[in-house]
């Protein structure tokens, strides 16, 4: 059986898909890919459904070797270099990892979370319907833990080993404020605190992980205390504990918690928020439901349109091809036309 062997990787490298919905009533965090856009794009490039489990790299990259057969792979998400046996793979493109070849993913140059998908996905039993690792409860992933050197990831027979593909456009970079909807407990804050929240710059602190992003910035004053009887938590909730410094709850959040939530990041903006690095600034803008729903719809449309947006890549010529080809006659393009930017 074809497998991907982990030679090295960062300590927080894990398997992630769309998450483990449906079990929150039993205290199970949904988890799932921090940047669903990166996951969906990497999967599209290898012909997978968008939410097939992929490897999520966190800041640091890793090296992986194909064993027992050839694999189609692709990466997306945080900007990082991918090479196959030292040869660079253009961004947003399918690469073929031949049996025995090594793929190396570099550290993220910008953003935090990068995804490496393999055609057909991994043949690893899901837990409660998902491969997503939730580290704090040791659920999912490979034996409930992050990936590490010498792990062997069995791959499914690829239903698609078709053409190498390329996505012509980068994922839209939007540096605008993160859009939020106020509530559910905005009434626990003074009007001044809400104004400060919406008009100030906050910095993502080093205490940012898959569970939550701690922010530092001006103190947000509570109007009626900060202890509430624990109630439900959703991803994107911005809770404010007694310190007055907000925490944005991300994919690995717990299912219930006891601090007032001033606002909730809209679903379409969580993915780009996830890529904001510790030490970087973030601002918020309040929107009405209509804008949030339109953005969610646009996100879905983008994911659904991904396969049609891809263009075939002419396979990179091997040394033998180059030696056999007549490279002197005719026109040689300085720019490789197969990678339009």
């Amino acid at each position: 059986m074809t497998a991907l062997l982990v030679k090295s990787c960062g300590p927080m490298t894990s398997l992630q898909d769309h998450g483990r919905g449906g079990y929150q009533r039993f205290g199970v965090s949904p988890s799932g890919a921090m940047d669903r856009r990166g996951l969906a794009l990497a999967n599209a490039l290898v012909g997978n459904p968008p939410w097939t489990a992929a490897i999520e790299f966190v800041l640091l990259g890793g090296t992986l070797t194909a064993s027992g057969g050839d694999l189609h792979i692709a990466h997306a998400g945080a900007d990082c270099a991918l090479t196959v046996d030292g040869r660079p793979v253009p961004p947003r493109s399918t690469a073929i990892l031949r049996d025995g070849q090594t793929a190396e993913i570099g550290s993220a140059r910008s953003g935090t979370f990068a995804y490496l998908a393999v055609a057909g996905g991994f043949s690893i039993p899901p837990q409660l319907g998902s491969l997503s690792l939730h580290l704090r409860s040791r659920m999912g992933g490979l034996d409930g833990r992050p990936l590490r050197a010498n792990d062997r990831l069995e791959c499914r027979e690829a239903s698609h080993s078709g053409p190498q593909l390329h996505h012509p456009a980068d994922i839209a970079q939007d540096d605008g404020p993160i859009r939020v909807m106020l509530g559910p407990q905005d009434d626990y804050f003074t009007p001044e605190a809400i104004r400060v929240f919406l008009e100030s710059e906050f910095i993502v602190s080093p205490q940012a992980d898959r569970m939550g992003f701690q922010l530092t910035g001006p103190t947000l004053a509570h109007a009626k205390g900060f202890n509430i009887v624990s109630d439900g938590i959703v991803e994107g909730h911005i809770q404010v504990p007694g310190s007055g410094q907000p925490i944005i709850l991300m994919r690995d959040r717990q299912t219930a918690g006891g601090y007032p939530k001033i606002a909730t990041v809209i679903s379409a903006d969580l993915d780009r928020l996830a890529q904001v690095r510790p030490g970087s600034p973030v601002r918020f803008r309040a929107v009405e439901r209509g804008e949030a729903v339109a953005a969610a719809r646009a996100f879905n449309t983008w994911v659904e349109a991904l396969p049609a947006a891809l263009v075939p890549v002419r396979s990179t010529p091997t040394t033998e091809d180059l030696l056999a080809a007549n490279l002197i006659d005719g026109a040689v393009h300085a720019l490789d036309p197969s990678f339009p930017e």
Partner: protein
Amino acid sequence: MNASLGRSIVQAPRILPCGDCALSVEFGNTIDPGINGKVLALDDALRAAAVPGILETVPTYRSLMVHFDPITADYTDLTQRLLSEAEALTSQAVAGRRWKVPVVYGGAHGIDLDDVAERHGMSPARLIELHAGAVYRIYMIGFMPGFAYLGGLDPQLATPRRVQPRARIPAGSIIIGGAQAAVASIECPSGWHLLGRTPVRSYAADRDPVFLFSAGDEIVFDPIDETRWAALERAAEAGEPVAEQVTP
């Protein structure tokens, strides 16, 4: 609620928006069986009705979190439907099951028992008597998979949380914090006090059922000794529920 208490704590249900994909139906602000009963009754009603667009409902102490698909669900229709369902609730939730949960108290299994007893000026035996003498209600499952938040702790045992939380407490820890009690399901960080330990796994990944308890169930604790604990621990390890369903 009980008028003799001189307060009305079950408020008219209200909807709190939680972003574009969820909303919370809130019945009150306190930990109260009447409020929690409404939450669980609405949860039952929605699960039975299979409302289009609703993806998942999550009961908590005093509110029901409703996750929905913002693209297929119309928010106005959804909130109207939820409010009319919430206001029409005539009964409490379907009565939950009652579980007898074996616990070995004190010693290495409950390292805080003696300290807590001393703090309340009672003997460890009296503390066990009070803790094991109550019928607890599971208000919600949260924090960790299968972690059961319990109401019903004897007020004499209410104990402020530890100043310094512990990084890890063992799976199956029987703990109290403030006026609350809990059954910890898996190893987790905690600032609560460890009174004992149960071999029961309220969450076991490879067992059917994976989760033993649901919100609305009741729990009674059954003190056991070390020998019994060892036998039950082996049975639980082999996939037995070990917790016994009993009739109230």
